[in-house]
């Protein structure tokens, strides 16, 4: 599809293929409470990613033997719609989707107080309607907001963002093209108030110095995402945040 010789991931002015600077996030929009039947839900547009997340629970566990006596089971399903990618994706879950479901669950689990709901289950369903690189981070962001919307007891929100390397530059929030043609992609999920990392993956090659820079950059991205997550929740539960600020 792409002609590699003509492909410039970054031009001489430090602008990236989609016009962003090295520290610039794609545009992010989160809406809370979009799935009527769900206990909590959120829709996120993260660049061209379009993802819907629904949370059901806490509820009874089926099959019953999966129940844990001292805490709640968390289940997570990351799934891509067949029309979400450039070439049609087979609707059956792929190995990639199974892995992402797992790391996503593990990234969300530390934020939840699961001991408050023994013998129950919380289901998180993440459906990618359109994928654009960084869909796991976008999915985690929406999932955390949906869990808050469901009223689950939480220690913190989970905010996620990737950073990566394009030759000598460490850049924030890798897009689809940069993911495919760049040199490294490192998604990070972070608890902004507890300052803990809950997801960390790296695909590509970096030096230890570049690794630290990448991590620092990704965390700064997570902090920006956190503000947008809070704003989306405020908007649903307290109306317009601007009005609140004016009153204060």
């Amino acid at each position: 599809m792409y002609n590699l010789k003509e492909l410039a991931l970054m031009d001489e002015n430090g602008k990236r293929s989609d016009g962003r600077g090295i520290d610039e996030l794609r545009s992010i929009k989160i809406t809370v409470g979009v799935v009527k039947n769900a206990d909590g839900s959120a829709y996120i547009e993260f660049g061209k990613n379009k993802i819907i997340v629904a949370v059901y629970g806490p509820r009874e566990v089926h099959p019953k033997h999966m129940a844990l006596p001292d805490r709640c089971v968390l289940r997570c399903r990351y799934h891509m719609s067949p029309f979400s990618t450039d070439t049609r994706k087979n609707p059956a879950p792929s190995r990639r989707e199974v892995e992402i479901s797992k790391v996503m669950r593990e990234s969300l689990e530390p934020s939840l107080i699961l001991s408050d709901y023994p013998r129950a289950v919380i289901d998180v369903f993440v459906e990618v309607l359109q994928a654009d690189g960084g869909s796991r981070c976008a999915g985690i962001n929406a999932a955390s907001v949906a869990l808050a919307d469901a009223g689950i007891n939480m220690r913190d929100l989970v905010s996620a963002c990737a950073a990566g390397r394009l030759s000598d530059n460490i850049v924030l929030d890798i897009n689809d093209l940069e993911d495919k043609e760049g040199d490294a992609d490192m998604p990070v999920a972070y608890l902004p108030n507890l300052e803990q990392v809950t997801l960390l993956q790296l695909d590509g090659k970096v030096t230890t110095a570049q690794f630290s820079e990448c991590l620092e950059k990704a965390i700064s991205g997570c902090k920006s995402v956190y503000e947008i997550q809070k704003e989306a929740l405020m908007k649903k539960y307290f109306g317009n945040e601007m009005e609140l600020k004016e009153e204060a």
Partner: protein
Amino acid sequence: MSSSKRSTVIVEQLRKQQMLEALSRGKRLDGRDFESYRTFEIEVGIIDKASGSAKVKLGNTEVIAGVKVETGEPFEGLENKGALIMSAEVLPTASPHVEPGPPDEDAIELSRVVDRGVRGSEMLDLDKLVLIPGKIVYTVFVDCSIINSDGNLLDATSYAVVAALLTSKFPIYEIKDEQVVDTGKTMPPPITTMPISITAVRIGESVLLDPTTEEEACMDARITMTTQSDGNIVAVQKGFTGPFSVNQVVQFSEIARIKGEEMRSKIKELN
């Protein structure tokens, strides 16, 4: 193997009595009369990566359909026709009763009935989607995701599919040196007609159009009829355990034609 099952949605006895009482007065619990559809919203072109897409909201039922166009081998016995492949998945987001996994018999029935409407009406002129007869043809995938389920998935999915196809832009492929080349250009799809399905359920002696989940949980029988633009019937599916009288079926065929025309003009406005 298919076995009879208990409805996953259980309506309380009191609520059911309330419903039957309302129906005896010619009203439904949400205030509609028997032949009214719920509010109907449609948005097209929401997925840029698809050749066509549509989101339909029918009351609280929400469905997204996406069209993907690729090339491949024709089906056996249909060597000189493009291939049309449809699927529907009721996502686990849709209701607390959906289990993630491969489509169950209801989801398969859903996509097959919608498929029959499109195929039976020859909405897409598949003869025009051939590159090398017998060897390479256009493969059109129409995939549906049910996001939220509140009854009548059949009609909501059918409208989403029709709207997505109608507003899609197919890539133009060419054959150069026996290789398929994407020219980067697009064309409108070869549309011949618009199949529109209308669904009703029977509860006791009442026949209600566009049932909600609650009404489906109380139904005795269900029927879906799809008509094309000239009013001819192109697909029918009688569903669920109860029967219909011959008279009810004949009456319904007339309603399906009239209501179908109403719905068709609403969707036609998109193009």
